């Protein structure tokens, strides 16, 4: 399959022989290499680990590689307090399939007005999307369920539509999204009636029905009608997460790697080491390269260019840091402190000719040019920089 196969195999096989030898040696000392025994894939209660992965039991005060203080794990802590009823109600505002929204109502028409005022700038006309924000509708929700089998295996293939109407399994999620997350720049500012109206409007955009009744302009969304919404793709998800045995269903689902595209081996030596690609596989290069990286990729080690700072200013700053900051950077050295407006106003008050002359020739404890080797011109630029930063 791969064009360069033969020479790769030659290059790799010598290394492979070395690696097999090493693995053979390691195998003797690390006996557990034979494992992936089932008992590490279950919790202490004997139930399978819910995500299909490992469980690390506590053995001799160690959990996996970590020591633990098991004395800390017995409870007995009395920190904090019981929340008040009002506090619970204030924070517990989420709407779920088993917890209806609060009382209120709104129509499609009202929803359109709210949408035009608060949503259209990001979600586009009639929920068509735009500016990088999600579309809220792509037409008839019931028709679009069939698109969920579409795969963009090549640019001329259409992909699946995944908007609220044809994809989401529960209408409660829409209420939650609008109430808790919208409008994006200032959330939790909509009234319950506004949320009802937006739910109605978005369902209208998705050409949906409630209990056989089309959600048209004067449709009234309230607790009663909201409770009757049945989403077209409600059975489109796996594993099952509803009912008293839900977590067992999830457990069973992830116990089978084939459900989620994973590969499992019973022991390390079962893995494929040679001829591991399908005959149809080939090297695929980037065709449409995405290279809008902010900031652009760079592995160069250099000094940063400050935005809006000219190279001359940057040089003056660097010269200040190198030659002057030791004495001018902090109080107590007897020099006017960098950034001290009053002190520098006094300095400038002597007249710039005097300031430059003192700086170049030295004054009091300051040596000529601060002890630097800079030209007069460059040193004046440093003086200018220090004054400009102390105004």
């Amino acid at each position, binding site marked *: 399959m791969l064009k360069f196969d033969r020479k790769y195999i030659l290059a790799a096989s010598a290394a492979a022989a070395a690696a097999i030898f090493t693995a053979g040696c390691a195998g003797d000392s690390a006996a557990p290499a034979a494992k992936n025994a089932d008992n590490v894939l279950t919790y202490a209660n004997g139930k399978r680990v819910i995500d299909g992965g490992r469980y690390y039991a506590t053995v001799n005060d160690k959990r996996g590689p970590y020591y633990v203080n098991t004395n800390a*794990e017995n409870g007995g802590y009395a920190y904090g307090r019981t929340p008040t009823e009002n506090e619970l109600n204030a924070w517990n505002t989420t709407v779920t399939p088993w917890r209806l929204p609060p009382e209120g109502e709104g129509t499609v028409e009202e929803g359109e007005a709210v949408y035009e005022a608060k949503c259209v700038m990001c979600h586009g006309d009639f929920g068509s999307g735009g500016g990088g924000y999600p579309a809220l509708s792509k037409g008839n929700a019931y028709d679009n369920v069939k698109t969920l089998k579409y795969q963009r295996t090549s640019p001329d293939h259409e992909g699946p539509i995944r908007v609220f109407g044809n994809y989401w399994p529960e209408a409660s999620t829409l209420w939650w999204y609008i109430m808790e997350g919208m409008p994006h720049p200032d959330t939790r500012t909509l009234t319950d009636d506004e949320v009802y109206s937006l739910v109605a409007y978005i369902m209208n955009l998705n050409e949906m029905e409630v209990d056989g009744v089309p959600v048209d302009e004067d449709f009234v969304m309230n607790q009663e009608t909201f409770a009757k919404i049945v989403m077209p793709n409600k059975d489109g998800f796996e594993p099952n997460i509803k009912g008293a045995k839900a977590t067992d269903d999830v457990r069973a689902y992830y116990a089978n790697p084939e459900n989620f595209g994973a590969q499992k081996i019973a022991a390390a030596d079962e893995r494929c080491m040679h001829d591991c690609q399908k005959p149809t596989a080939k090297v695929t290069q980037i065709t449409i390269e995405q290279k809008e990286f902010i900031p652009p990729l760079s592995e160069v080690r250099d000094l*940063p260019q400050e935005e809006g700072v000219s190279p001359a200013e940057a040089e003056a700053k660097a010269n200040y840091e190198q030659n002057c900051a030791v004495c001018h950077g902090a109080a107590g050295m007897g020099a006017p402190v960098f950034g001290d407006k009053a002190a520098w106003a006094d300095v400038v008050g002597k007249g710039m000719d005097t300031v430059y002359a003192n700086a170049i020739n030295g004054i009091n404890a300051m040596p000529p040019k601060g002890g630097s080797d800079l030209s007069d011109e460059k040193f004046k630029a440093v003086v200018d920089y220090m004054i400009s930063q102390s105004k």
Partner: protein
Amino acid sequence: MRNENSQHVAENVSAERRNFFKKTAALSATAIAGAGMLTGSRAMAADDPVIMNTPAWGHKIGYGVTKNRYGLPSPYEHNVTRRNSKLLSSGNWQASIAMCPIQDLSGIMTPNGLFFSRCHGGIPTINPNEWRLMIHGLVEKPLVLTLDQLKRYPNVSRIHFVECPANGGPEWRGPQFNSIQFAKGMMSNAEWTGVYLKDILKDLGLKPEAQWMLAEGIDSSHMGRTVPVDKVLDDAMIVWGQNGEALRPEQGYPVRLLLPGWEGNLCVKWLGRLEFAAEPFYAKEETAKYTALKPTGKAIQHFYANEVNSIITNPCPEKPWTDLKKGDLVEIEGLAWSGMGTIEGVDISFDGGMNWVEANLKGLVLPKSWTRFSFMYKYEGKPLILASRARDDAGYIQPTIDQEVAVMGVESVYHRNGISSWEVTANGEVNNVQVRSEVKAVDGKMKFVGES
């Protein structure tokens, strides 16, 4: 005796110094001009001027300890930063992601300022004194904690990666980014300090019918996710510490949930509320985003663990081999990780995953953590397709792209852990490539073109 000797030595040193100053004064002014000081007068072409000359930092006094009270990297490292792309963002930069420069990291710890950052409603600035955690629902004793009260619980520190399940997600249909930072940078690794949630729950009386926990943020997006109680009672943590200091705002300051190995978005940041229930919550992003659509038309919901994965970090597109010469011995290095266990081994391929040899692991090998691997290679200046394949102690091994696509198709967005490969050209440049077959979808199944 001893004192006399010391004094004698001191006098000699002083004499030498006086001598030195005389000689220095004798040098002409031009000899000490510029950034450097020539230590010898006969510099040859073969001599490296940065060795022959003393640079400014070698003789000018440096800055004081009073500067940068919270330290900063050298300004010369300014290109080592998180990066973002409009392709991976909503219209503004407030529901977006910034990628970790994994090409520039060493070891397994990510500096906090480089930790990848994903948010749904911008990064809030939360006053920790006004932060509260509420735990309620199917517990006998609901609870409100302040930050100080939370930190009174006995703490544990654990090293774990956090990975967005969309890491590598833009490349289901083929390679797009000639960059490791963008191909795999939606993850980072840190030492987290906090309390096991199960230790708090011991005193709250979790009711037997509780199967699920909602974790909800207090930022403007109020990100929520449903977590099975299994994970809560296993290794779920509420954390406030990240690599020895407080969580960064980008990672959920003051407190986040940490579900070791699981999708980053499940590790709810800016955590405020935990509610226990018998039925799941269908939280706001739970189906809107974090579900993986299969070619059958069914989507995986509650897709928890990031599966075993690996990537070669050296070489990579950002760190090519263009400076190597034939015969150079060079280390091939990379990162492996699994949200389902501990890395057990990593294999390297030079021919795009056709044949494999075992690499060495190096450094700490910890559960649900980045793990370094290493392979010594004699560079021959020939084109290669380098690939890595990790396996974990739960028995999982990275699938080939074909194996993964056969089940998941090309539309699932999340949880892509198929084998990654780099093309190394004859002159040492490194490009992102994939080794895969052409596929098409037929009746809800993926078919390989050219296969009967």
